[in-house]
C-alpha cells in the first residue's frame, strides 16, 4: 500500500461539504457554531441554509445546550468548534445536557492535537479523546482522511445518540479507497503483517503506513490497523491481530493518557495481554510551531515510529 503524501485534502472541507449535502436531503439538520464557522467549515452549510444555522458567538457551553434543546424537537444538530472547546470548555454541558439523556447531538470538533500549530498549547487539544471517551453513551471517531471524514459524518447523521468526531486542522493524504465503508464496530486492516501490529487513526495513520514500508526493508512485517472508532473499541480485530503478532503499538496525535493507546491497552490487558507501546504526546502540553515541526518534536512521524517498532520487536524476540 503506497500513499501519495504529496496530495493532501482538507478534512474540514470534506465535513462542510458532506454537511451541506445532508442538509439538502434532510431539513431537520441544524448546525450550531461558536464564532469559528470559517475555520470549522460549517460556513458552507450556513451559506446554503441560513435559517438552520445558529451562531452562539464565543459561547461553547451555550452552543452545546442549545443543541440539546433543538434535539428534543426532533432536529439533528451538528455542533462545531475547536476540539479543545468542545471537549474541555463544554465538557459538563456535553455530559449532563446531551450524553446523560442520550440526545441525538453530533459534535464535530476540528483542530485536534498538536498540529493546530502556531496558536500553541491553549488551542492544542491533546486530551479531548480521553475526555469524551469517559462519558457514557458517547461514540468517539477520529477519521484519518477526507474519505473517512465524509463517511463518519454520514454515520453520525444516521446514528441516534451523541457522537464526537475529531478532525485535524492539517490536510491529510487519502489512505482509504473510494469504496470505503464506515463500520462502527469494525476497524480496517490496511496492511497485513506477522511481526508487529501498528494501530492508528487521524493524521498519524499515514505515518504508520509509511513506517510499515520502511520496516519491510529490514524484513519486519508490520500489520497496520486503521482504528477510527476509539469508542466503542473493536475488540475482535484487536485481539486477532495481537494474537498473531504478539506486539502492539498505538500511534496518535493525542496524549498517551486516555486516548486510542489507552483504549487499546485496556482491551488487550483484559483479553489478550501482550507487549504494548503507546506513542503519542507524552503527558505534556504542546507549544507553538509549524504543524510539521510539532509532529517531529512530539515523535509523531514515520521515522520516530520506526525506532519505536524496532525496540518493541527486539523486546518481543528477547522474551
Amino acid at each position, binding site marked *: 500500500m503506497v500513499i501519495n503524501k504529496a496530495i493532501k485534502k482538507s478534512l474540514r472541507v470534506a465535513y462542510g461539504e458532506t454537511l451541506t449535502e445532508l442538509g439538502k436531503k434532510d431539513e431537520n439538520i441544524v448546525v450550531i457554531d461558536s464564532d469559528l464557522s470559517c475555520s470549522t467549515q460549517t460556513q458552507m452549510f450556513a451559506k446554503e441554509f441560513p435559517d438552520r444555522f445558529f451562531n452562539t458567538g464565543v*459561547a461553547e*457551553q451555550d452552543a452545546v445546550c*442549545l443543541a440539546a*434543546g433543538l434535539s*428534543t*424537537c426532533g*432536529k439533528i444538530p451538528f455542533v462545531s468548534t475547536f476540539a479543545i472547546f468542545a471537549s474541555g470548555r463544554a465538557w459538563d454541558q456535553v455530559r449532563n445536557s446531551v450524553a446523560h439523556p442520550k440526545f441525538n447531538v453530533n459534535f464535530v470538533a476540528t483542530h485536534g492535537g498538536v498540529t493546530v500549530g502556531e496558536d500553541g498549547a491553549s488551542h492544542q487539544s491533546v486530551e479531548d479523546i480521553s475526555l469524551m471517551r469517559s462519558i457514557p453513551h458517547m461514540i468517539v471517531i477520529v477519521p484519518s482522511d477526507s474519505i473517512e471524514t465524509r463517511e463518519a459524518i454520514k454515520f453520525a447523521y444516521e446514528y441516534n445518540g451523541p457522537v464526537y468526531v475529531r478532525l485535524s486542522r492539517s490536510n491529510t493524504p487519502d489512505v482509504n479507497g473510494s469504496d470505503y465503508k464506515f463500520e462502527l464496530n469494525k476497524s480496517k486492516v490496511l496492511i497485513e503483517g506477522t511481526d508487529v501490529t501498528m494501530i492508528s487513526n487521524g493524521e498519524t495513520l499515514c505515518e504508520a503506513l509509511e513506517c510499515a514500508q520502511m520496516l519491510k526493508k529490514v524484513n519486519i512485517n508490520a500489520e497496520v490497523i486503521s482504528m477510527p472508532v476509539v469508542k466503542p473499541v473493536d475488540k475482535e480485530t484487536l485481539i486477532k491481530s495481537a494474537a498473531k503478532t504478539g506486539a502492539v503499538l498505538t500511534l496518535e496525535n493525542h496524549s498517551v493518557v486516555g486516548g486510542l493507546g489507552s483504549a487499546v491497552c485496556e482491551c488487550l490487558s483484559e483479553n489478550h495481554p501482550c507487549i504494548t507501546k503507546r506513542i503519542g504526546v507524552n503527558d505534556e502540553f504542546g507549544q507553538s510551531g509549524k504543524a510539521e515541526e510539532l509532529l517531529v518534536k512530539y515523535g509523531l512521524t514515520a521515522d520516530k515510529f520506526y525506532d519505536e517498532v524496532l525496540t518493541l520487536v527486539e523486546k518481543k524476540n528477547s522474551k
Partner: protein
Amino acid sequence: MTEQKRLSEEELKNLEEVAKKIRENILIMINTAKSGHTGGSLSPVEVILTLYAKCMTHYKDWHNSPEWGNRDRFILSKGHASATLYATLAQMGYFDEHELLTFRKLGSRLQGHPTFGLLPGIEVSTGSLGQGLSMANGIALGLKLDKKENYVFVLLGDGEIQEGQVWEAAMTSAHYKMDNLIAVIDRNRLQIDGDTEQVKSLDPLDKKWESFGWQVLEIDGHNLQEIYGAIEHAKELGKQKSAPVMIIANTIKGKGVTFTENQASWHGKPMNDEELQKALQEIRG
C-alpha cells in the same frame, strides 16, 4: 396594555388547596428520602403550579397523546427543586401520587435531579446549574423552525444565575428574538452559603436582564393572581416587543413553614419526623 387576565375566586381557592397538597407532598418526599432540598423546593410551588394548572398547554398522557407535539414546554433549570416538579406533575395526573414516595431511591423514576427519559413530563435533564436557559433557547428555536405557536417556560434559581452560561444564553435569547420564551427567576434571595447579596450580589436584577435585551416583569412569587396575570401578560408582551420575557418572582425560601422560611440552612436538608409533623400541621392549618 391589555387588561390583565384574572383567576376567579373559585379558581384561586382550588389552586390554594392544591398548593397546600404539593407542599405536604414535597416535605413527605424529602423526609422519606432522608435527603433533598427543602428550602428551594418550597419557594417555587405557586409558580410551577400556576404554569401547569392555568398557563401551559400540556398533556398528562405525555407522548401517548396525539397532541403531544403541540405542547408548551417547562424546563426546571434549578433541578434541585425536582420534588416540586414531581409533586406538581402527580397532581396534574401524569403519574400516581404513590410513586412520589420513591423519590431519590434506587431504581426510581424520580431521580434526585430531573432525568430525561424516565418520567412523563420531564423534557430534558437538569441539575448541573446554568444549563436550562440554553436548552430552553434550543427548544424555542426548534418550535419556531416547525412553525409551532407553543411557548417554552424555564425556571431559574437566583443563585443559579451566578453561572456564566446563563448570561451566554441570555444574549442568545435576545439575539434570536425569542418571543416564545418566558423565564422566571425564583428570587428567594438565599443560596447555600447565605444571602445572595453577600455571597455574590445579583441586584439590580431587573436592570441586568433589561440591559441584555429582555422584557422584565416583577411579581410576588407566592401570589397566584399575580403569577397568573404576569405569565399571561408575558405571552403577549414577548410578541409585542419581539423579545424574551423574564419574570422576577420574589419568593421566600422555605415558604409555608415558619421554621424553614428565610433560613439558608434549610437549602439541602430534610426534616426529621417530628419536624415534618409540625410542618404538615402548619400547612394544613
